[in-house]
């Protein structure tokens, strides 16, 4: 039995409601904007920042909500079915329970971050702010969000199905798991701050570098931790 009980069931329920309300608000905002957008739009967004081809209003309005819905639902279902640990592992429900409040908080931060990203994107699409201002606002928000989530990653100390780097190779060893989450935290904070500064200084360049920076940020901690474990002879 863990001695820590920092989050009451009532607080957890409130966090759940907040998460659901944020996702509902994201869809409502996108739906509202969709009926006010022209059928085709030429707009640089975080998703389509590298080309100037006209895009449909539906794509501009619903890409971010679709990413959030797939991300949240995919994460919950993957956690529920334990598919990220392959071959399947016997996870401790106690550890999962200990990490669950943190998982909800991190999902909520991500949802809030995407609402602001979407608000900047739609404001630019509707002509309320300039295209570059929209791109800058969305990019800075994304960077800060990545940094905030990265800051909390080292708190994912227990192996679980819902949050953190959930890979079979990390699950095998608790030290390996903790090292990977901690290292990932540093990478995420560094990458988030880098993206935020980049989008302030050069938003268009930011859209070009965003995917490579995020790819390195996601992959490097796993590879480095794995390498360290092999060198220690624990893998």
């Amino acid at each position, binding site marked *: *039995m863990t*001695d820590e009980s920092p989050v009451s069931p009532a607080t957890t329920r409130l966090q759940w409601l907040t998460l659901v309300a944020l996702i509902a608000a994201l869809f409502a905002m996108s739906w509202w904007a969709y009926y006010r957008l022209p059928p085709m739009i030429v707009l640089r967004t975080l998703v389509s920042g590298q080309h100037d081809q006209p895009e449909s209003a539906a794509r501009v309005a619903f890409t971010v909500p679709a990413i959030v819905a797939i991300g949240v639902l995919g994460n919950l279902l993957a956690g529920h079915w334990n598919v990220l640990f392959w071959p399947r592992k016997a996870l401790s429900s106690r550890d999962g329970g200990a990490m669950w409040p943190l998982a909800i908080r991190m999902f909520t931060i991500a949802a809030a971050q995407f609402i602001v990203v979407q608000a900047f994107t739609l404001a630019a699409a509707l002509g309320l702010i300039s295209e570059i201002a929209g791109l800058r606002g969305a990019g800075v928000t994304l960077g800060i969000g990545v940094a905030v989530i*990265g800051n909390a*990653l080292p*708190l994912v100390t227990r192996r679980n199905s819902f949050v953190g780097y959930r890979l079979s190779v990390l699950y095998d060893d608790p030290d390996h798991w903790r090292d990977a989450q901690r290292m990932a*935290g540093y990478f995420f904070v560094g990458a988030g701050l880098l993206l935020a500064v980049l989008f302030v200084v050069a938003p268009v360049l930011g859209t070009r570098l965003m995917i490579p920076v995020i790819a390195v940020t996601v992959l490097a901690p796993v590879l480095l931790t794995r390498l360290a474990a092999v060198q220690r002879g624990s893998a």
Partner: protein
Amino acid sequence: MRDPFTGLSDPTRRRILDLLRERPQTSGELAAQFDVAWPTISRHLAVLREAGLVTVERQGTTMLYELNMTVLDDMLKTVFGWTTPTAPKGRSRK
């Protein structure tokens, strides 16, 4: 509520956090690595727990302490290390 400043202001507590970075440990294991009395280490652990920098889990008759620091906490700890005296060196592990 988390209060990393109180937890990180003392060099002994920062040394405890360094030791917990290696792996979760019991208060007895931690105390064995210092030249101060076990109750002193126990008091420092209580402060760290109050500050939210460590979590504790009961395992039978012992309490297992585990690091619970964000990246920002870790950076603050480094800054505190530059500006305040260093911790008494722990005994080398047997």
